């Protein structure tokens, strides 16, 4: 029985007075790829942001890698526990080079001492970034920026990464590369929590999936079963 990496229990979140997450429960075993799917505004991004510590008002019980009470910790402390996060808008820091963006992912990590080595390794994994290390990061294409955001969030070799719509607005070739990368990360033992609009793509590499609607999880199933279940997909994921 693999260890539980993430366990979210009865998570609630609010923006001002609007009660956006209304009791979300989900989990991921170590080494799994787990997807959250659901239509626009269902609360997927809010779920990831709450787990990461970026939503001011939230309540519930979240345990990560054996540590309970995650919600009481600040965002930076969650990263230090081994929780990486790639936000939906990528958040490449303007004005910094590709290399500087990568270094940023290592500043707080014990791997900082081997910074040059780690960046070399990243450059091998992300050939597109390798040629552009000293380029200002904003000049990268959207897909390359997404690769950079992933490379940055995983530079410190986190135990788990949460990715918010990584394939959005990216050309198909790069989407292929990206999903191959996720498969490789899984092989290396990284747990992945994936939010995707590209439902078929996401389900095809996932172990399990949750369907979210109006701030709650409405369905949970093995990814393969959900992939075959057109009715559910139709009902909760069509825009």
């Amino acid at each position: 029985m693999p260890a539980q990496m993430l366990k979210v229990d009865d998570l609630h979140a609010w923006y001002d007075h609007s009660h956006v997450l209304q009791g979300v429960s989900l989990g991921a075993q170590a080494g799994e790829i787990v997807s959250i799917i659901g239509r626009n505004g269902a609360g997927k991004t809010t779920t990831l942001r709450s787990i990461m510590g970026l939503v001011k008002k939230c309540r519930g019980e979240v345990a990560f890698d054996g540590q309970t009470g995650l919600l009481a910790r600040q965002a930076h402390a969650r990263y230090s526990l081994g929780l990486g996060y790639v936000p939906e808008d990528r958040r490449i820091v303007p004005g910094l080079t590709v290399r500087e963006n990568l270094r940023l992912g290592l500043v707080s990590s014990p791997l900082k001492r081997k910074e040059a080595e780690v960046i070399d390794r990243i450059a091998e994994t992300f050939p597109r970034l390798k040629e552009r290390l000293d380029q200002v990061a904003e000049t990268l294409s959207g897909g390359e920026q997404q690769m950079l955001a992933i490379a940055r969030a995983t530079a410190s070799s986190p135990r788990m990464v949460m990715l918010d719509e990584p394939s959005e607005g990216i050309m198909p070739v790069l989407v292929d590369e990206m999903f191959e990368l996720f498969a490789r990360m899984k092989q290396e033992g990284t747990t992945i929590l994936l939010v995707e609009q590209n439902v078929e793509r996401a389900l095809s590499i996932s172990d399990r999936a949750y369907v979210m609607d109006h701030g709650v999880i409405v369905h949970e199933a093995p990814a393969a079963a959900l992939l075959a279940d057109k009715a559910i997909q139709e009902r909760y994921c069509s825009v």
Partner: protein
Amino acid sequence: MIGGYPIELLALQLFTGLALGSVFVLLAVGLSLIFGLLTVVNFAHGAFYMLGAYAGVFFIGYLGNFWLTLAVVPLAVGAVGLVVERWLVRPLYGRGIDYPLMLTFGLAYVLVEVVRILFGAEGMPFDAPDSLMGAVDIGVGYFPAYRLFVIAATAVLVLALWLFLEKTSYGLVIRAGARDGEIVRVLGIDISRVWLVVFALGTGVAGLAGVLSAPMRSVFPDMGTTVLVEAFVVTVVGGMGSLAGAVVAGLLVGVVVSMTSLFAPAMAEVSMFALMALVLLVRPQGLFGKKGLMG
């Protein structure tokens, strides 16, 4: 001869402007750094400058050594800045830009009054060290050695600050944090600690500016009030949040003020505001103004 003045006199006046501008640079750099990262408009910056001058008076009496005083003052004033950020400014984050503005505005009055009570309203003497007394020949004439030292010290400090921001990991975090605090947090960096350090750094440099200018301008409780206005003019001209802007605009304002006080002494006071208006008409974001620090 230009405008009836010999070239040498103009050149000396230019240096006088650079010395004056150096103090502006030191103030504007801190102001800009603090605004760029914390979005705090620090109205107490002039008071920290004043504290620096008084700390100088105190420490030189206590230590008896100018150079040691120069090293200790920024640390002491920075420590006050540390306390102010941690216990006064920090609770106001996330409430809008006007809260810390009002707080620092009030704090400036408190600090000035405390100093008035402790040291009196009279000006205090502060002499340059013997080694920097007198004047040196700079090719176009004799120029006060102390002012030359102020220019050089500012150049060294600005260079050190630039190296710190551009070449160190901590500098990288500061630059990134000024543009996107949230991503810095989710990459494991405790941004509130970075804010604390930057506030202390900015106020420490203001304190250094205070002690450096003490032998050139007199030391009195209100000395920070006018200089705060000047520092804001410089930051606006240079562009809020830009280190390069603070340097260029600081020197520019210093030179403009010093030149107008030669050609049209009555206009010296308003010349910097005229410059500011002119710059804002052409570039509303200031000379180097961009979003974020070090633009």
